[in-house]
């Protein structure tokens, strides 16, 4: 069983990452990652919705007729999104304004409905919750990486406006890495998101290929020894 959980974790965080590999939920991923704060806000919101929807979908999986499962999944997801949206409206109002339409749009995030369909509707509650956690973390990690990259290049800061998400104490989190005279607007605008996303995916593939090459070298050596003894 622990092997299973380990598999789920690597799937969600790396080898089947919703952002980098499945390329799901690109619309919010590209749209709101202009600062780390926005990325973190959306990442947490998506994580919460994913967790809730996977839990509920898994709990009711034996009573849902196959023919109408998609509308039911959407209903479940929509109710969680509404809850998260109201919570953000109440507690992190500035961030709520900054994210705007992209909070309600979580409903249509294919990463979430994809997990409900592919995993939660076929598995018990505990693995489903764990899968949601890992997928959510993987998605949030990509959001954060992209957000950090764009904020750093665009305005030379990190965690600018973090108080909107975490409360007044978080103003201390703001780091000015580079003092830029001019904002590098491209990184903050949508083209920067596409280019940055492309670079992230390329980076992940490069790491995977390097790993694969190392493994191939290793297996090749053992094989040579085996044939040596047999012949």
């Amino acid at each position, binding site marked *: 069983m622990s092997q299973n959980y380990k598999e789920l974790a690597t799937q969600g965080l790396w080898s089947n990452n919703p952002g980098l590999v499945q390329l799901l939920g690109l619309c919010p991923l590209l749209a709101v990652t202009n600062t780390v704060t926005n990325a973190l806000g959306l990442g947490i919101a998506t994580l919460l919705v994913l967790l809730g929807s996977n839990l509920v979908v898994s709990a009711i999986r034996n009573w849902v007729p196959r023919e109408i499962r998609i509308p039911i999944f959407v209903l479940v997801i929509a109710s969680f999104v509404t809850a998260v949206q109201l919570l953000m409206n109440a507690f992190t109002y500035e961030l709520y304004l900054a994210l705007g339409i992209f909070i309600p749009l979580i409903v249509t995030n294919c990463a979430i409905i994809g997990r409900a369909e592919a995993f939660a509707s076929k598995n018990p509650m505990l693995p489903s919750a764990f899968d949601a956690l890992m997928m959510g973390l993987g998605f949030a990690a990509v959001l954060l990486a992209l957000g950090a990259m764009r904020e750093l290049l665009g305005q030379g800061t990190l965690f600018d406006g973090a108080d909107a998400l975490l409360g007044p104490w978080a103003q201390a989190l703001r780091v000015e890495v580079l003092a830029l005279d*001019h904002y*590098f*607007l*491209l*990184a903050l*605008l949508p*083209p920067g998101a596409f*280019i940055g996303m492309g670079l992230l995916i*390329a980076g992940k593939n490069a790491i995977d290929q390097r790993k694969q090459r190392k493994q191939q070298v290793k297996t090749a050596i053992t094989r040579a020894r085996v044939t040596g003894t047999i012949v």
Partner: protein
Amino acid sequence: MSFRIASSPHQHNQKTTSQLMLWVVIAALPAIAVQSYLFGYGVLVQLLLAIVTAWASEALVLMLRDKTILPRLKDHSALVTAVLLAVSIPAYAPWWLVVIGTAFAIIMVKQLYGGLGFNLFNPAMAAYVLLLIAFPVQMTQWLPPTALQQHALGPLDAVCAVMSQASCQGISLEQLRQGVDGMTMATPLDTARTDLMMGLTLPESYEKPLFQGGVGVGWFWLNLAWLAGGLLLLQQGVIQWRIPVSVLGSLALCSLIAWSVNPDTNFSPLFQLFSGASMLAAFFIATDPVSASTTARGRIYYGVLIGVLVFVIRSFGGYPDAFAFAVLLANMAVPLIDYYTRPRTYGHKAVKGRQ
């Protein structure tokens, strides 16, 4: 006697890539000379920066990709990209502008797609668009032509100005940007557009000192120099006539129609053809052999598309000059154009419905 078996085309001009690229640079020389005479020595400083950056970033990426460096640098394609970008940006733009632009052109637009021959987009124009979007202020601060400048800048001043945004005597670029009459200036296209927005008619706008001679001081001569370079390229067989003729022809036709409908608010065909980057783009940029269409008929469609887009963006768009956007948009259409204009294979009948 043995026969050498080679695939078609069997008849080709005996020029290597590196010779073709060198011809492009040679053909650009007169225009570079005119541009540095008109806009100051800053042009040369930008050129130097761009070339050094282009070579450095090309070598860096080739090293990362485990490729041989020197033979690929010697094909001079990076040089051409650097030259085309350097002449497109304002002469006294800050040094990091051209460095960022050239590095982006070579690393992201050219090498990441697989190097020379594989890039979808024209590297110089993609970099120009990047700079225009990322640094709109710096990219539109053209100094007035030297003839209208209050302070003349020497070669050393040009280096100071590009590096620190002030001449060696400490006259800031803000002051330099003011013309003899104390008015700040932009390019003719920009000025005309602003005047139109302020409710002036074009003939009223042309009264300004910037427009002496109809299309703006200097810009006419600059475009003539690019035209001369382009004709040299045609004569040498480096480029074919189809793209430049169709770009300029469609631009002229569109503007002729608009101008004859209302000459007060539409640029005349002459103004369109001889201001901004018209000649530079038609002969040197749109004809890029990699990112342009490859079939004879396709090149005409490609050129017409660029010409029409330039007219549309210049007339209705938000940016003063349009060639970079038009060329990139047309580059995107190239695979489609090539698909539908495949020439008939020799010995085969024409397919019905498609000539």
